[in-house]
């Protein structure tokens, strides 16, 4: 995806927004009563929506829609209307037809968030540091990476015969419910096609996919959705390295702490501890910083611009792949679509072959996903090439995908041996109107119709021959 679009007006909205839009106005208003939730949701909105909210925030009365309309130039009309519609579905703006007002609960809560007012403690209750055995940033990062990679590693190596460390029961249940893994033959879980696609997404997207599934399941577990959501959003506004107290949390949220520990989002010294620390996975939920520390073999945690530090793959025109990594998870993901030839302490050498790509295609990964994974993790040195990946390799991966689809099949019935041309055309016309014709040949006077349409066509013919 070109970088300009990533922050531009045509960007894909954050995956949490459709979920929020499906909630009732009451739930959303309850959610907006907490300042931290307002701030976190604001950060997820697109640039145009944020502009609109900011402009309306400090106005006490309502603004005529025509006033705001007059600010928009003609080419921006489409974006503006989409933004207003999106905000209305989120119940941030009420009644957008004639006057524009912000949801009053949101207005006061958001103002509190920005001015730092109020005793709401919705940004978490920080506790004193300096107690021994409290976690430093390195410990938190190591914990988050270990938990998260256990989950992903479990997914990648299922079915290859290796037996990696199993994540906890709760995580396994979540993976199964989200369709990323499936149980077969009793207790063994195998990764599904959706799971393979999941592995090629960025960590931010992966995290939100799992959290959305968690939110969907919240109601069945009789957890109040608003509390779950507000806890997650509160976590996203917390500071890395700061301890927080559990005294302000509701029972639902205390239960959540257990689950979040399993996913690597919070760290607690022991399960009964009255304080917790959010890890980097939690604090970057609504930001664009990388959710996992940029790993290198020496554990150096300096923050580079995310794109530069994430890239480690070099792809040559002879289909050879050089991946500068020692991370077993990244190696396992590469193994999904490339044949690895040799491993060194900081380098993995392999190549993209027909067999390896066919194996990946058979697992449900598409050619586009392979190409976008390679693009996203391309080594900074590859930027000298235009286009980034060699065109020959890209085209060949797509051609191998097309090879799979050489033969298409459809079930149905062939209607033939019509008595006369007129008969044939009459029935064909009827079938066409139903939209069930897959193939026709007027020279041979026959046509092929779908399985579903057969009942209707047969009924039609019987009525004709019976009555005529």
């Amino acid at each position, binding site marked *: 995806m070109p970088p300009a679009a990533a922050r531009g007006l045509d960007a894909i909205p954050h995956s949490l927004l459709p979920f929020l839009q499906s909630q009732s106005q009451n739930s959303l208003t309850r959610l907006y009563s907490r300042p931290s939730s307002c701030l976190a949701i604001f950060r997820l909105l697109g640039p145009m929506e944020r502009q609109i909210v900011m402009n309306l925030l400090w106005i006490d009365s309502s603004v005529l829609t025509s006033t705001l309309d007059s600010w928009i130039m003609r080419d921006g009309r489409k974006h503006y209307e989409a933004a207003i519609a999106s905000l209305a579905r989120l119940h941030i703006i009420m009644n957008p037809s004639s006057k524009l007002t912000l949801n009053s609960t949101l207005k006061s809560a958001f103002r509190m968030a920005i001015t730092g007012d109020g005793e709401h403690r919705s940004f978490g209750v920080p506790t004193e540091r300096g107690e021994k055995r409290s976690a430093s940033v390195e410990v938190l990062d190591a914990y988050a990476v270990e938990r998260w990679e256990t989950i992903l590693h479990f997914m990648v190596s299922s079915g290859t015969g290796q037996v990696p460390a199993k994540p906890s029961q709760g995580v396994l249940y979540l993976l199964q419910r989200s369709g990323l893994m499936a149980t077969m033959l009793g207790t063994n879980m195998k990764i599904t096609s959706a799971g393979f696609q999941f592995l090629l997404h960025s960590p931010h997207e992966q995290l939100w996919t799992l959290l959305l599934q968690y939110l969907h399941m919240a109601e069945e577990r009789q957890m109040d959705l608003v509390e779950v959501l507000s806890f997650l959003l509160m976590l996203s506004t917390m500071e890395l390295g700061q301890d927080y107290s559990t005294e302000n949390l509701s029972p639902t949220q205390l239960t959540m702490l257990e689950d979040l520990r399993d996913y690597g989002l919070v760290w607690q010294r022991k399960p009964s501890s009255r304080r917790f620390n959010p890890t980097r996975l939690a604090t970057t939920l609504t930001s664009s910083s990388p959710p996992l520390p940029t790993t290198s073999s020496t554990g150096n945690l300096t923050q580079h611009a995310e794109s530069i530090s994430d890239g480690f793959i070099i792809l040559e025109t002879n289909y050879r792949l050089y991946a500068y990594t020692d991370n077993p998870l990244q190696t396992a993901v590469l193994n999904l679509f490339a044949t690895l030839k040799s491993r060194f302490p900081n380098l993995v050498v392999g190549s993209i072959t*027909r067999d390896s790509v066919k194996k990946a295609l058979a697992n449900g990964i598409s050619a586009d996903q392979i190409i976008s994974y390679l693009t996203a993790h391309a080594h900074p040195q590859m930027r000298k090439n235009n286009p980034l990946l060699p065109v020959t390799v890209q085209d060949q991966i797509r051609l191998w995908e097309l090879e799979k689809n050489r033969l298409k099949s459809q*079930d149905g019935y062939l209607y033939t041996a019509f008595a006369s041309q007129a008969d044939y055309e009459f029935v064909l016309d009827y079938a066409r109107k139903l939209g069930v014709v897959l193939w026709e040949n007027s020279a041979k006077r026959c046509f092929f119709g779908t399985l579903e349409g057969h009942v209707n066509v047969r009924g039609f013919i019987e009525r004709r021959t019976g009555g005529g």
Partner: protein
Amino acid sequence: MKAIKGVLLTCDPAVKQLLVNMDEKQHFIIQDLDDNHLLIKADEEDRVRKELDAELERNTYSLDT
């Protein structure tokens, strides 16, 4: 008039010719419709796909480096 139940196969002429050759050993084609379409028996579809894949693999060569 007749209605024949079967599976419509859509493919390029090369693949169609391969299928016609395969048919000589074990019949599965009900009718040869045109250059790009064949009508085959419904229960034979899986077997035909497997054999076609095997046949196409025989004609591909990769360089092992």
